C-alpha cells in the first residue's frame, strides 16, 4: 500500500500505435489497442472496484470484483482481463454487478480477521476500501466456518512481516516478485481454500527473497506490511526525493510522521526505477538516525588526542588556520581535497570551487578515480565525452545484452530487474566475468554464453571478439564508413587481424574456450540491437582505459551506438559519482570535462569567480598519498569519502594520512579516515539535503529535505564558511542558486534549474538549447567529437602475476545488502544478511588447502595479509578467489596493490596475486586495528572531559 494513492490504472500501459474507441458508462474514451477495459475506464475517470489488479503487473483475473457488463455479450467478464475493442459499450455499475460484487466481498470477509481498528493498515487498506465501495453490510455465512485466522505471522525478515491470516490470495505479491523484481521467490502453496503465499523455504529470511519490498508495496491488505508501519502507524505526509545508495538513482516518496521517516515508497513515475526499489533504498534508511551519528563539529590537535566537541565557528576557524599554516609552510600546492560522490552536485561544486578559488590550486579529485575514471578517459577518446550513451529504458529494446565485469543483480538491483524482464522476453545474454554471477543462470534466464576469463585478460578477450567480427566479415560497413574516422579504423583493422588477437591464441591466455568466444562474437554482431553493460570488472584494472576503448571499438564496429536498444553503458556505482565528475572534481578538468589548461575555459571561470585560477593540473588521489609521504601534500579536506577503507594498499594510505598536518573529514560517522583527522565536520544525510544527484543515466534528480539538518548547518553552508575563512567568501542563499551557477558555467547543464526539475521532473544532460528536454540517447547523428575514433588496444598483461608464492588471484566486489564501505548499511538491519566479509573460494582450491566452509583463513599478498572466514562457492573458477570490502575490520584493501590503470591511475582492485591458507589468528594489521579502534573514537562533549 502507499500513502498517496497514486492513480492505479489496474493493468499496465499498452504500447500500440493503433487506438480503439469505446463507451464506458456513457463516456467515450480512446485508448491504445491492447488496453484493458479496466484501464480504459480509469482513463475515462471511472474506477472499477478491484483487488487483484494493480498496474505494475499483468492482469490476473482472480478476485472477480471488477466484473462488467458488455452490450451484446453474455455474462459478466472481468474488466482487467478483457481488452477494449472498438465500439464496445460497457457498463460498470448495474444492479446485477452490485449484487455480484457484494457477494464476492461477503465471501472474502467470511475468512478475514475483523480487527480493522487495530490493524496496521487501518485507513490504508484496499480490502477495507472495497468493502465500503460495494456496500457490504452483512456476512450471512457467519464466522464459525473454516478460516485462516489462526495462522502464525512470519517475522523472520528484518523489515517486514507476513501475516497469512489476512491474505486474500490475490497473488499480487507473487506477481510482483515474478514480473517486477524477477526473483520469483514467492508462490502460492496448496490448492483451493488452503492456498497461501509461501516462499519455498521455511520463512522469508531463509528463502530467495532479496527484501526488495515489491511484494509489500503490491499487497492490498495488511498481510505484507513494513515493520515501521506496524510500529508507528500510517504516515501523514510525503516528500519526493532521490535515493542515496547506488547509481540507479531511484525516485522515492519519503513518507513521514513529523520528521520521522516511516517508509520509503518508490515513485511510480520515477524514470529510473518506475516504482521499484531494492532492500537498501526502500528499507535501509535507519542509519540517518543511528546513535553513531556525529552531529557536532570536533577538533583535536593531534590524532592521538581525544576528539573535542566545539562550536561551528571554532571548528571552521581551527580548520582554516591549520590549512593556511600548512600552505605557508609547504607551499600553495600542499593542500587539496577530495569531493564526495555521495553528496549533492551543489555541495560538490562548492568543494571544488573552494579548492580552486580559495586554496588556489587544482588538487581536487573524487572517488571516480578508483572506479570509473577509465570510463572517463576511454569514452572521451573514442566518442568525445565521458558519459554512458543510453538511458535505462533503452534495455527494453535490446536483442542481445552483453554484461562485462558487472554484477547488476547485486550492485544495480533495480536496473537488473528491468534487464531481467527483457531477458525473460527473449533477449539473449552474454556474460564476461570470472565468476558465475547470478545472472548467468537464474529463474527463466540463462546466458547464451558465459566466458569465465582469468582476471586481467579483459583486453585480450575483447580483442578476440573484435577479431572474429572482422575476420568473419560481420562488420557494419555502412556505419563505420559514415560515422568513424577512416584512417584510424584502417590502422586498427590491421592491428586486430593479427593472429595474436585470434580466439585461439586468446583462449589459452584467458582460460576460456575459443569456440565460445567465436559464438559470443557472432551473437553480438548479428543482433538487431546489441547493448553492452559494464562495471568495475572492466575499469579497475591496469588496462582499464584500454578495455573501455576496446568495447567502444566493438560498438562502432557493429553499429551498435546512437539509438535505443544499443550502446555502451557504464554502470556508475555511487548515487552521485556521475555528478561529482560532471562538477569538475578532477585535477585536470573543470566541470563538463573541460581542461584546466584550456585558457578560454579557465578565463570564463576566472571572470565568473573573480579570482585567478591555476592552469596546471593538480594531484590525483594516488598522487596525493605519494606526495604526502614525501612531505609535499600535507593538508586535505575529505568530503564524504572513506579513503582509509576503500582505497587500495591501505598501509600506504594510512602512512600518508598520518604524515599530513591537517586532515579535515566531513562525514556522517567517525570512519576509518577520521582516525587520522584533526577536524571532523559533521555532514548531513540525504534526508537532510536540498539539491540534486546525477545517476548512471546522466539523469539529474531532485533531493529534497524531509527534516532539518541534524547538525544545524547545510553541508554546502559549511564548505562556504570554510571558504570564507580561507579568504574567499561564497554568499549563496540557497542550493538552487548554486545550481544556477553550475548551469551558467557548464554548457551541458545550461537548461537546468531547480525550477525546471521541480516542474518538469528529472532530466538527462546535455540539457541546453540544442537539447531543451534533455538527452536520453547520445551520439545519435554524430559523435560528440564528430566522428568516432577507433583506438588500437594492444593487450599488455598486468605486472601482478601469480607465482608459486601467490598462486591465486583475488578479485573484489560488492553484495546486494551492504553498500560499499558499509558506512550506511552496517548501521541498519541489513547486517542480518551479511555481518562479515567472507572469502569466496572454489571447492577444489579449498580442498587442496584443507579449508572447509566457515574456517578462518589468511589471505596474503605481497602487500599485506588479512584473515577472513571461508565460503566454499561454485560460482568461482578454480584459481580465483573473491571478497567484498563492506566491513573495515576485514582489511580487504590491506592486500590490494598499488598497480593501476596507465591512463587514469584507477587502482587494479580486480587482480591481486594471493595465497590462502588456514589461519588461527587475525593478521597483524587487524590486531593493530582492533587495538586502536577505541582510541580513535574517544569524544569529549562540548566543554567537557573525554568519555570512554
Amino acid at each position, binding site marked *: 500500500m502507499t500513502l498517496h494513492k497514486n492513480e492505479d490504472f489496474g493493468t499496465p500501459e499498452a504500447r500500440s500505435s493503433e487506438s480503439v474507441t469505446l463507451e464506458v458508462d456513457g463516456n467515450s474514451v480512446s485508448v491504445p489497442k491492447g488496453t484493458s477495459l479496466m484501464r480504459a475506464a480509469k482513463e475515462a475517470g471511472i474506477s472499477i472496484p478491484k483487488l487483484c489488479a494493480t498496474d505494475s503487473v499483468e*492482469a*490476473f*483475473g*482472480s*478476485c*472477480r470484483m471488477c*466484473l462488467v457488463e458488455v452490450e451484446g455479450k453474455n*455474462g*459478466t467478464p*472481468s474488466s482487467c*482481463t*478483457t*481488452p477494449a475493442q472498438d465500439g464496445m459499450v460497457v457498463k460498470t455499475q448495474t444492479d*446485477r454487478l452490485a*449484487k*455480484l460484487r457484494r*457477494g*464476492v466481498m461477503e*465471501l*472474502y470477509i*467470511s*475468512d478475514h480477521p475483523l480487527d480493522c481498528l487495530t490493524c496496521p493498515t487501518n485507513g490504508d487498506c484496499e480490502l477495507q476500501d472495497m468493502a465500503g465501495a460495494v456496500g457490504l453490510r452483512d456476512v*450471512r*455465512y457467519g464466522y464459525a*466456518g*473454516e478460516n485462516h485466522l489462526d495462522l502464525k505471522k512470519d517475522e523472520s525478515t528484518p523489515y517486514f512481516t507476513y501475516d497469512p491470516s489476512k491474505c*486474500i*490470495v490475490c*497473488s499480487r505479491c507473487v506477481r510482483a516478485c515474478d514480473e517486477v523484481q524477477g526473483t520469483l521467490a514467492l*508462490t*502460492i502453496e*496448496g*490448492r*483451493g*481454500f*488452503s*492456498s497461501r503465499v509461501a516462499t519455498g523455504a521455511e520463512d522469508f529470511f531463509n528463502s530467495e527473497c532479496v527484501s526488495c519490498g515489491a511484494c509489500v508495496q503490491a499487497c492490498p491488505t495488511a498481510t505484507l506490511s513494513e515493520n515501521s508501519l506496524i510500529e508507528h502507524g500510517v504516515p501523514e505526509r510525503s516528500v519526493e526525493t532521490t535515493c542515496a545508495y547506488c547509481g540507479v538513482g531511484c525516485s522515492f516518496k519519503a513518507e513521514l510522521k513529523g520528521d520521522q521517516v516511516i517508509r520509503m515508497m518508490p515513485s511510480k513515475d520515477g524514470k529510473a526505477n518506475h516504482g521499484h526499489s531494492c532492500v537498501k533504498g526502500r528499507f535501509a534508511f535507519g542509519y540517518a538516525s543511528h546513535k553513531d551519528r556525529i552531529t557536532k563539529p570536533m577538533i583535536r590537535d593531534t590524532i592521538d588526542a581525544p576528539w573535542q566537541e566545539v562550536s561551528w565557528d571554532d571548528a571552521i576557524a581551527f580548520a582554516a588556520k591549520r590549512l593556511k599554516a600548512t600552505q605557508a609552510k609547504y607551499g600553495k600546492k600542499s593542500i587539496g581535497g577530495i569531493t564526495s560522490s555521495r553528496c549533492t552536485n551543489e555541495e560538490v561544486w562548492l568543494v571544488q570551487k573552494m579548492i580552486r578559488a580559495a586554496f588556489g590550486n587544482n588538487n581536487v579529485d573524487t572517488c571516480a578515480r578508483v572506479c570509473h575514471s577509465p570510463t572517463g578517459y576511454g569514452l572521451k577518446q573514442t566518442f568525445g565525452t565521458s558519459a554512458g550513451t543510453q538511458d535505462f529504458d533503452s534495455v527494453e529494446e535490446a536483442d542481445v545484452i552483453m554484461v562485462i565485469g558487472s554484477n547488476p543483480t547485486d550492485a544495480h538491483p533495480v536496473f537488473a530487474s528491468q534487464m531481467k524482464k527483457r531477458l525473460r522476453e527473449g533477449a539473449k545474454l552474454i556474460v564476461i566475468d570470472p565468476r558465475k554471477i547470478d545472472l548467468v543462470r537464474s529463474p527463466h534466464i540463462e546466458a547464451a554464453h558465459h566466458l569465465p576469463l582469468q582476471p586481467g585478460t579483459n583486453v585480450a578477450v575483447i580483442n578476440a571478439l573484435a577479431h572474429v567480427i572482422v575476420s568473419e566479415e560481420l562488420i557494419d560497413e555502412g556505419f563505420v564508413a559514415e560515422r568513424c574516422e577512416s584512417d584510424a579504423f584502417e590502422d586498427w583493422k590491421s592491428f586486430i587481424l593479427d593472429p595474436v588477437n585470434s580466439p585461439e591464441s586468446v583462449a589459452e591466455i584467458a582460460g576460456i574456450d575459443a569456440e565460445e568466444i567465436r559464438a559470443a562474437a557472432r551473437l553480438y554482431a548479428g543482433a538487431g540491437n546489441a547493448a553492452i553493460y559494464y562495471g568495475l570488472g572492466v575499469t579497475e584494472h591496469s588496462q582499464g582505459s584500454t578495455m573501455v576503448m576496446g568495447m567502444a571499438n566493438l560498438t562502432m564496429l557493429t553499429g551498435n551506438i546512437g539509438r535505443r536498444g544499443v550502446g555502451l553503458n557504464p554502470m556508475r556505482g555511487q548515487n552521485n559519482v556521475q555528478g561529482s565528475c560532471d562538477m569538475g572534481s578532477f585535477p585536470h578538468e573543470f566541470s563538463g570535462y573541460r581542461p584546466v589548461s584550456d585558457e578560454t575555459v579557465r578565463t570564463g571561470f576566472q571572470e565568473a569567480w573573480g579570482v585567478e585560477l591555476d592552469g596546471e593540473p593538480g594531484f590525483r588521489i594516488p598522487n596525493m598519498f605519494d606526495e604526502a609521504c614525501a612531505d609535499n601534500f600535507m593538508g586535505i579536506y575529505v568530503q564524504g569519502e572513506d579513503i582509509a577503507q576503500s582505497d587500495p594498499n591501505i598501509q600506504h594510505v594510512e602512512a600518508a594520512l598520518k604524515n599530513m598536518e591537517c586532515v579535515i573529514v566531513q562525514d556522517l560517522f567517525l570512519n576509518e579516515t577520521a582516525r587520522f583527522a584533526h577536524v571532523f565536520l559533521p555532514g548531513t544525510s540525504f534526508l537532510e539535503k536540498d539539491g540534486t544527484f546525477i545517476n548512471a543515466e546522466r539523469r539529474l534528480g531532485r533531493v529534497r529535505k524531509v527534516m532539518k539538518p541534524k547538525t544545524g548547518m547545510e553541508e554546502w553552508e559549511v564548505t562556504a564558511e570554510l571558504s570564507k575563512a580561507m579568504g574567499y567568501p561564497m554568499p549563496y542563499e540557497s542550493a538552487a542558486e548554486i545550481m544556477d551557477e553550475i548551469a551558467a558555467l557548464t554548457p551541458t547543464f545550461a537548461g537546468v534549474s531547480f525550477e525546471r526539475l521541480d516542474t518538469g521532473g528529472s532530466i538527462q544532460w546535455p540539457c541546453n538549447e540544442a537539447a531543451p528536454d534533455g538527452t536520453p540517447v547520445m551520439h545519435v547523428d554524430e559523435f560528440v567529437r564528430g566522428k568516432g575514433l577507433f583506438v588500437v588496444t594492444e593487450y599488455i598483461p598486468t605486472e601482478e602475476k601469480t607465482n608459486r608464492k601467490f598462486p591465486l588471484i583475488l578479485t573484489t566486489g560488492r553484495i546486494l545488502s551492504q553498500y560499499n564501505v558499509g558506512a550506511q548499511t552496517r548501521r541498519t538491519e541489513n547486517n542480518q544478511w551479511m555481518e562479515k566479509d567472507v572469502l569466496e573460494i572454489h571447492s577444489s582450491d579449498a580442498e587442496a588447502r584443507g579449508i572447509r566452509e566457515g574456517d578462518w583463513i589468511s589471505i596474503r599478498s605481497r602487500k599485506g595479509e588479512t584473515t577472513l572466514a571461508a565460503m566454499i562457492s561454485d560460482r568461482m573458477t578454480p584459481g580465483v578467489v573473491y571478497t567484498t570490502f563492506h566491513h573495515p575490520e576485514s582489511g580487504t584493501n590491506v592486500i590490494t596493490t598499488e598497480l593501476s590503470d596507465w591512463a587514469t591511475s584507477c587502482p587494479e582492485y580486480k587482480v591481486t596475486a594471493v595465497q590462502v591458507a588456514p589461519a588461527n589468528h587475525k593478521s597483524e594489521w587487524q590486531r593493530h586495528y582492533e587495538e586502536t579502534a577505541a582510541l580513535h573514537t574517544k569524544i569529549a562533549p562540548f566543554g567537557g572531559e573525554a568519555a570512554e
Partner: protein
Amino acid sequence: MITIHLSMDSAAVAVGAEAVAATILAETKSRSIDVTLVRTGSRGMHWLEPLVEIDVGDGRKAFGPISPDDVPSLFEGNFNSSHPTALGSVDEIEFFADQQRMIFSRCGITDPISLLDYGQHGGFEGLKAASKMSASEIVDAVMTSGLRGRGGAAFPAGIKWKTVLSAEADQKYIVCNADEGDSGTFADRMIMEGDPFLLIEGMIIAGLGVEASKGYIYLRSEYPVAQRVLTRAIEIARTDGLLGEAFDIEVFMGAGAYICGEETSLLESLEGKRGQVRAKPPLPALEGLNGRPTLVHNVISLCSVPSILAEGGQWYRDLGMGRSTGTMPFQLAGNIKRGGLFEAPFGVTLHDLVHKYGGGTLSGRPVRAVQVGGPLGAYLPASMLDTPMDYEAFQKIGAGVGHGGIVVFDDTVDLAAQAKYAFDFCAIESCGKCTPCRIGAVRGSEVMAKVMKGEDNVANLALVEDLCEVMEDGSLCAMGGMTPIPVMSAMKHFREDFISEEESK
C-alpha cells in the same frame, strides 16, 4: 489353434481379469494345448467383465463374467455354448448390437499395440486421405463434419482448427486432454488402453491440419495402464516412421488434479507450473502452450477425426441429430444393472440408455435421479429421462451432455447430500485462484450442512441460491461456474429433500 481374447482394460482388471489370465495360462500349460491368449481393450460391457472371447476356428464366442474358478470348466467343456457363462457372439448382445461403433470399432477386438491389427481393421484410412490433402482442406473437412468438442464444452472443433491454422508462429502444438476427471466416465481411458493408434492417428492428422509438429498427451496420473499402453504404442509408431521429426508425440503425466482437465490449467501444468486457471483472452488457440498457438482437444474428439477424413465431413454430419453430429460414446455408470460404453449417434434418449440398455438400477429399486455430464452436471428426475441425447435438447432442460457420463441413482439417494457433495467436490478440486470458487465452495458446503441438519432452512436455501449466482456469474472457469448446476438442479427437481412443505410457507 485356439485364441482366447481377454481384456486388460483397467475396469476388467479391477474385477479380476489378471487372476483369470493367470488361471488360463496355467490351464493351457497343464493341458499342453495350443492356446494363444490375446490381451485386448474392453468391449465396454462392464457387467460381463472379466469377459473372454474364445475362437476355436469358427468365430469369437463370448463368455462372462468369468472368475478363475470358471476357467477349468471352460476348458473341460471345450469352450462350448452350454457353459453357464456362455453369451454367444458379442454382436448378438442387444447392448452391443444396437450401437454404432465408429470410434470403438476395434476396441476389445484387436491387440491394442499391433500396428498390423490396426491397419487390417480399418486403421489409417483417415491418415491416408489426409496425407493427400492440404491443411485447409483438412480443416474444411472437420468444419463440415460439425464435430463438437467431446470433453464437455461442445465447442465446434472446426473453428478451433481454423484459428490455429491461421495463426502464424514458429511452433504450434496439439495437446490431447486425457485428464478424464469426471465421475462416471471412462471412454477416454478405454480407447487409450484399447486402441491407442486411433488417438495417435487423430493427432497426426490434427498436426497436418494446423501445421503443428509436436503433440502432447496430458494423461491423468490415475491411468497407469493407459500410460504404459500409450507409451508403447508411441514407440512402435516411431519405429514404424509414423512419428518422428515431422510430428512427434509425448505423454505427460498429471498429478491428481481435476482442475487440470480445464484447458488453461492443463497448459500451465504442462509448462511445469501450478495447475492454475488462466484468464481468457488470450485463447489457447492463439496463445497456448509456451505462448504458441495450440489445438487442445479431448481424446474422443481427436479419435473422431480419422473417420471424418476417411469417410468425409458430410458423412459424419449426416449422423446424429440437429447440430449434434456424429457419434458419442455414452458411459453408463452408477447404480446401474448394465454399466458400460454405448456408442451411438446423437438422438438416442436418456430413457433408453438407462432402462433399455442399462437395465435400470443394479439395486432393483426405482431410478430416482440421473446425473449427466460428470460432477458438474445437472441431476435429472425420472420424469425428464425422455430427452434425446443432444446438446441443444439438454441445454433446453437446464442440463448438459458434457463428456457423456451418465450416473444413475435409485430412490435411496438424498439430493441434499448430493448438493453438499457438489460443493465438497469443488472445494477439494478448486485451484484456488478465484474467490467465488475458492471460498464459495467451502461456504456452500457449510451452509448445505446446516440445511441437512434442518437449521434455518428458508434463509440458508436463499443464501445457497445467492451463492450459486455469485459462483455462476463470477467464477473464473467452469469449476466454480458450473458447481451451481448440480446444486440448483437438485434443489429444483428434488426440493422435498431440502425443505419440508410446512417450512417453505
